[in-house]
């Protein structure tokens, strides 16, 4: 369980996040929505501790995440994988090595630097790539892949960390509709079949409604909405995006993510070959 209490972050004179209180139970799929500059990214980066909170505390199962340092901090970052809008892979390294880099915190620095990854780890990496249906690209340089493929490599790397939480910071903002859909479905699949908590920042309302069981709306650094997708009325959306921004939030439904996926009444289960891949890992 992730417990965020009274967290504030200031950058100079601007306050990016204003005393946010949230409790996120394990295994939930949460969408954080809001206009640009609402503080969504800062909130996620504080959870992973890429950014240190100015005030308040973040707790994960009795560990005070907000005051960790050194090896303890890196262990938390291992447990709390992060996916970025720009993928943040190493473009000059091949895909398999990029995925193996998710293991860094599980191993000694010397063996990592010498590229001494074990057979089990390589098998695990290939299983992760297979699960995301991109194992064919394993030996290509990551920089040569398309955006959608790179984002799936990033998700595979996150899986290699064996995380308890996955944070996704605008994972589909620079992808085309088709790839956006694939990425969102993979995140939902990971959430449902592995029970990993997924917190994802989304720019658009529709995507959040389609994939997330809980939606948090932020505006000007504060949480202005917290509820299920069905509670997200037009009035609530107006509170999140402001009267002018509402149009923009809806217009992005052209991304098709909601369109094609629909609203599943029955949660899909992992196909058998994926289940084998997981068992093999």
């Amino acid at each position, binding site marked *: 369980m992730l417990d965020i209490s009274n967290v504030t972050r200031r950058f100079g004179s601007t306050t990016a996040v204003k005393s946010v209180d949230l409790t996120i139970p394990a295994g939930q799929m949460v969408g954080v929505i809001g206009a640009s500059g609402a503080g969504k990214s800062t909130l996620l980066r504080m959870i992973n501790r890429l950014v240190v909170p100015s005030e308040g505390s973040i707790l994960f199962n009795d560990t005070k995440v907000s005051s960790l340092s050194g090896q303890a901090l890196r*262990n938390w970052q291992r447990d709390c*994988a992060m996916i970025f809008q720009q993928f943040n*892979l190493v473009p000059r*390294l091949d895909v398999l090595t990029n995925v193996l880099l998710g293991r860094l915190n599980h191993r000694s620095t010397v063996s990592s630097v010498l590229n001494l990854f074990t057979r089990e780890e390589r098998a695990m990496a290939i299983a992760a790539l297979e699960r995301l249906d991109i194992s064919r690209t394993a030996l290509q340089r990551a920089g040569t892949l398309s955006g959608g493929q790179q984002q799936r490599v990033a998700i595979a790397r996150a899986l290699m*960390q064996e995380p308890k939480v996955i944070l996704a910071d605008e994972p589909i903002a620079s992808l085309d509709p088709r790839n956006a859909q694939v990425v969102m479905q993979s995140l939902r699949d990971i959430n449902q079949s592995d029970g990993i908590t997924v917190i994802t920042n989304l720019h658009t309302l529709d995507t959040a409604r389609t994939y997330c069981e809980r939606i948090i709306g932020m505006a000007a650094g504060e949480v202005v909405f917290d509820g299920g997708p069905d509670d997200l009325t037009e009035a609530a959306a107006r509170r999140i995006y402001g009267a002018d921004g509402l149009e923009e939030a809806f217009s992005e439904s052209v991304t098709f993510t909601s369109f094609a996926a629909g609203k599943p009444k029955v949660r899909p289960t992992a196909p058998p070959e994926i289940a084998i891949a997981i068992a093999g890992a």
Partner: protein
Amino acid sequence: MERHWRQLNNTRRLYTILGLIGLAFALTASLWFANETNAGKFIDRLPHLFDFVGDMIPRDAFELWRALFDLESPYYDGSFQYDYPVGRVYIWGAFYVPEYLYKMMETLNIAVLATFVGFSFGFMLCFLAAKNLTRSRWLRFAVRRFMEVLRAFPEIVIAGFFLAIFSLGPIPAIIAVAIHSIGALGKMYFEVVENADMKPDEGLRAAGGNWIERVWFGIVPQVMPNFISYFLLRLEINVRASTIIGAVGGGGIGETLRLSISRGHEAKTLAIILLLFVTIICVDQFSAWLRKRIVGNQAFEFGP
């Protein structure tokens, strides 16, 4: 208005003329000073320039090749000037390496070894000097000043210092060139590192990688092509530097050249100059080729 403009213009013109006079005066004074402090008077010695060129002409065109490959000369009269085979370096039986090629190899060896040492230490230090990787301002400051000190002195000054300690030979030359290379490469390298794309680093940080892992996997792959490019450029510079150091006692071809010039051995001097010329062109061409081969068009391409 008109008067004011003319006034301004006159002032400007006056300053220009005063400046030119001052410059001419300074130039004349410094030339006079240089001539006064010179051992022989420049004007008096000028005609001897042509004497020197005349002395450099060998007795026949083949003398140059005989000197270069240590072959026997028909002009051999027992004097050292025409005794080319004496310099042969026998490797195995009758097989020998000509003296100057051997000395050239010594010089190249100094350059290559020193560049490798410079690369290794420059590589290790540059990440500590880069703003985007080292948070501690004091550590950064210390490393940067340290590298500045290393590159502040020309190789020849450092060589003079180490020659006094280790006596004549290539070891002090290697140390001198290496020290200068650490400072020079370290500076180039940390500037490359500061221009690197930090997104891969952020990704690894978010995955719990420590500093060394982040540097090795996030930064090194993108800066390596530039590092190699600068390494090869440094190698070219160091070949020249180690030749010069040879002339002050650091061994290698430079030393042989200086001795040969001062003794007035025309064929030997020409042979050495030819060899130097060809070697330096070859090294430059080779390094340009290798740079293109390894780095390709991606030398200054960062990120995806």
